């Protein structure tokens, strides 16, 4: 009788025809969520909301042509840079894996970058519909 290792390859094709249904349902759900998110009124501009330890500490309006660094006394090692092309990014952090810095620039509503070890979070929100979304979509 074959053991678990011997049967692993025999019974495991890469793809079965029934997987197509699962794949279709997952992608359909993703598309519906994407369309639902896109129904919000198109924002005139974007705001980067910077949270520390779950509390909002700064709202940065991402305006064209404005470029500056943001430093915070809560974590002096964190440097957030606002770019002239209406994006923002973590550029420096003392966290071990630098996932936050590697995330790069963000600027589209709904996108976020997080420095989890330092408990810093940047979330981009549409300027016109942020309060409305908080009522409907935000889960925390």
């Amino acid at each position, binding site marked *: 009788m074959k053991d*678990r*290792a*011997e*049967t*692993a*390859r025999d*019974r*495991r*094709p*890469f*793809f*079965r025809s029934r*997987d197509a249904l*699962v*794949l279709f349902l*997952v*992608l359909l*759900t*993703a*598309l519906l*969520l*994407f369309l*639902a*998110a896109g129904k919000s009124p198109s924002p005139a501009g974007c705001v980067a*909301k910077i*949270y520390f330890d*779950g509390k*909002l500490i700064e709202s940065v309006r991402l305006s064209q042509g404005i470029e500056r660094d943001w430093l915070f006394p809560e974590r002096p090692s964190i440097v957030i840079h606002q770019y002239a092309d209406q994006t923002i990014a973590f550029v420096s952090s003392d966290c*071990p*894996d630098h*996932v*936050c810095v*590697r*995330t*790069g620039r*963000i600027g*589209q*509503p*709904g*996108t*976020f*970058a*997080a420095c*989890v*070890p330092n*408990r810093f*979070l940047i*979330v981009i929100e549409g300027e016109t519909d942020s309060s409305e*979304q*908080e009522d*409907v*979509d*935000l*889960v*925390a």
Partner: protein
Amino acid sequence: MSRNNPRRMAVQRMTRTSVMLAAALALSLLESVLPPLPAPVPLRYGLANVAVMAALLFIGPFEAVSVALLKSVFVLMTRGLIAGSISFTGTLLSVGVMVGADFLLKRRTSVFLLSVLGAIAHNAGQLFFLVLFLQYKLSVLFIGPYLLFFGVLTGLLSGALLFICLRPLEAFFRASDRSGGKDSGMM
């Protein structure tokens, strides 16, 4: 000592699980030097899931859960409590979904389905931790599509990697089984 000796079998399972854990840690380290995914939200490739799935397919569900949990313990020790907790939540949900799917489909789950379900569950687990425990103010409506879409992509990647490795892994396990039989005096 007989090839079916319970003590020998237990040692063999533990050794195989340790090899899979080492592979998971190596893949995790490899992932940390790869360029980030071109996604609008921070996501990882989930390469370590290849080793967890291999443990599930070749050794068993208990060993797969062990590999996943010990990998999170390693993250906890090297990257701190919060990173370890995020890894723990994502990993636990991921391996739970994979083991559950494999059980429900009577061990006939395809590599693709197993991998994609694991990747999506991993992303969802990490998001739940960020939102529920760290109180991150994130919109599920905005992030959900990206998590699902990139879950399919990263699941496809890790599933393909595992499928490529199935024959070498099978050969490795057969060889270790044979050498275990020869060296049974040492076991």
